[in-house]
């Protein structure tokens, strides 16, 4: 056998044992988009890119991706739109259940349930996406816009969410999370971190929602004890959209005009934000006030630290029972920061902002707000050491650089 043939055989052999090179699967809008796009998402192999061409994909059912290391990439949040206004089935527009997935540069419109959900999808990156219910705030809109749950390492960067009847960006029962550079408008909750551990929420805009940014912990869930959440460098203004959530949802209890709301979480830091024009209050720290049966659940907020936020007008129209009376007693306006008093003095938040702060004096979080015995909260002299910054795997950061 000549040398040249040997080389040829060797190359052929190595082609057999090497995995195929990552490929790009192009999908265009037009007839049969539902089946063509879903088939591409199924046919994709780890490392592949499913590239959505520009235009409007008219979809009839939810889409799903269950292959690790796949990127779904459009031509931009205004250029490539997955249109679910004709959706007939499935609980969300796009469901991701695999790891190391990147979703970038496309839009999801008018899904019947949630917009994009990722469950048990570790190291997922949401980048430059638009999720929108185009009719604006309506109770008939889907619940969550961007919805990672039960995941480790979540990056949400430069997304826009509008119109969610629950939370625009919702991270649930996850850990190690960054939400940044994003915009949430005209949702009930702009951004919500729920039953999650270790989250940084920064450099976002939350405006014209009912509540701007929420940090919640709820009972009777597999992961409870939410803690270590930092909210900083955000602009949280004019969250005055009348609450349009269906009544049974927990966010239906968020008073219209709330900037930041912390409920039953531990170790939450709120600093360097610009917060204002929120008619109920700028920052609210409360316990979980509903009856529950769950011995493992702690309904009290603990170790909440607030400093260096820039406040403008707040509290001129508090939307909870007894709020108007308290505001009247205080000269017409509710304070920019309040704590319900849950758990008593030992659990009071540390506050170093130069604005009026109030305790409602309700040591039992289930007590009616109408029975409040408000007392001012003095500025704290010192605060504990800060939480460390969230660090995601470098491979995730590289994707959005």
């Amino acid at each position, binding site marked *: 056998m000549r040398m040249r043939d040997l080389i040829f055989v060797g190359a052929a052999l190595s082609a057999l044992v090497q995995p195929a090179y990552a490929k790009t699967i192009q999908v265009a809008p037009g007839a049969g988009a*539902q*089946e*063509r*796009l*879903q*088939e591409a*998402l*199924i*046919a994709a192999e780890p490392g592949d890119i499913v590239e959505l061409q520009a235009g409007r994909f008219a979809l*009839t*059912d*939810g889409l*799903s*991706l*269950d292959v690790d290391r796949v990127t779904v990439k459009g031509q931009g949040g205004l250029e490539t739109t997955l249109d679910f206004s004709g*959706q*007939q*089935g*499935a*609980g969300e527009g796009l*469901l991701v*259940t695999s790891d190391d997935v990147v979703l970038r540069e496309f839009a999801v419109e008018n*899904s*019947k*349930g*949630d917009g994009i959900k990722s*469950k*048990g999808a570790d190291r997922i990156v949401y980048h430059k996406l638009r999720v929108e219910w185009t009719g604006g705030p309506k*109770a*008939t*809109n*889907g*619940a*969550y816009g961007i*919805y990672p*749950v*039960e995941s480790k390492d979540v990056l949400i960067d430069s997304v826009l969410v509008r119109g969610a*009847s*629950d939370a625009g960006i*919702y991270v*649930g*029962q996850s850990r190690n999370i960054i939400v940044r550079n994003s915009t949430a408008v005209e949702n009930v909750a702009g951004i919500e971190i729920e039953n999650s551990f270790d989250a940084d929420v920064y450099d976002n805009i939350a405006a014209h929602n009912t509540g701007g940014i929420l940090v919640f912990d*709820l*009972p*009777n*869930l*597999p992961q409870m004890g939410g803690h270590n959440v930092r909210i900083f460098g955000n602009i949280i203004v004019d969250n005055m959209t009348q609450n349009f959530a*269906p*009544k*049974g*949802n*927990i966010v239906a209890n968020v008073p219209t005009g709330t900037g930041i709301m912390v409920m039953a979480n531990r170790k939450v830091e709120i600093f360097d934000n610009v917060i204002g024009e929120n008619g109920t209050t700028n920052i609210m720290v409360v316990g979980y006030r*509903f*009856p*529950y*049966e*769950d011995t493992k659940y702690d309904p009290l907020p603990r170790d909440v630290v607030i400093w260096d936020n820039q406040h403008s007008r707040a509290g001129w129209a508090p939307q909870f029972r007894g709020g108007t009376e308290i505001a009247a007693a205080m000269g017409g306006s509710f304070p920019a920061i309040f704590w319900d008093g849950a758990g008593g003095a030992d659990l009071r938040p540390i506050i170093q902002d130069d604005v009026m702060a109030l305790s409602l004096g309700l040591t039992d979080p289930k007590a009616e707000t109408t029975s409040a015995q408000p007392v001012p909260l003095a500025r704290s002299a010192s605060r504990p050491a800060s939480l460390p910054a969230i660090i995601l795997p470098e491979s995730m950061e590289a994707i959005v650089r």
Partner: protein
Amino acid sequence: MRLLLPLLAIFAAAVASSAATDNISEAAITDAANPAKLSDFGFFNGSAAKPSDRLIPYELRTPLFSDYATKQRSIYLPAGATVSADTNGRLIFPVGTALIKSFGYPAASGGLDVIETRVLLHKASGWVALPYVWRADGSDADLRVGGKRVPVTFAHDGASSSISYSVPNKNQCKQCHSVANDIMPIGPVWQNMEFPRKSDKQRIAKMVPAFAQLQPFARWDASDDANLDQRAKQYLKVNCGHCHAPKGSASNSGLFLDGSAQDAAALGIGKRPVAAGRASGDLDFIIAPGKPDRSILIKRMESTDPGVAMPELGRSTVHKEGAALLRDWIAAMPAKTH
């Protein structure tokens, strides 16, 4: 030449054994590549109405509701293979097993208009779920990994319904059939199974002697068979429990209807919704004891809106009889006094 003769003998033996298995291709079941046509497996002799004799047909005492479709279920066990079971009666099948389920509606001419056949294939790497859609002439069915919608008109209770029947895509198969992200069969649990052929039942019972100790599960629609609570819980287990389980697709809800619930809240009683969104309507609890009209569970069962309806997949019609059972069950619960 001397070497060739034994080889030929092996080849002949292989041909003989494949003939003995009624032309079912075990390679089609176990190979990594997924056959493009249902006929590649050899489960049917030319049409869905003619299953191979090698298939073991079975029925479920309480089945999953799928838009009033008629389902034909069967098991293909590799030649000489045996099954075992876990302590809950769930059958454990060897590699090479296939579970085959056809969906259709009664044809005007009698018989069944079969729309699709779903197969669960036990390969060495694990289970694989695939949907095959029958051609209009009924000659064969083609693999449709992306799923398909098929307009269907059927009669139920004297009334005619026209629906957009949804053949699930491959990922949707997994959504229901997933346990901790691996694909698993759902149906074959001994206590819920019936066998039209007595010999099949005896054969499997012989493989797993422990089955003799197990009591059959309730039939959801047979009030002389079990009490209301047993029937309702069995209905929930079969219709909801594959996702609403600690390792299922709806694990994050904390609502566990697979029989694992240790307290009332995990079963939905007095539990507030978590991620239901507008599906909660204006209701506060998944189950409000004594008040079916105030229970989100009933609201979602009685809806066909994709953002509200449960189960999320495979249902575009309300299961009136199932919803009625759960209404009765909730109405019979003592209302909580505060």
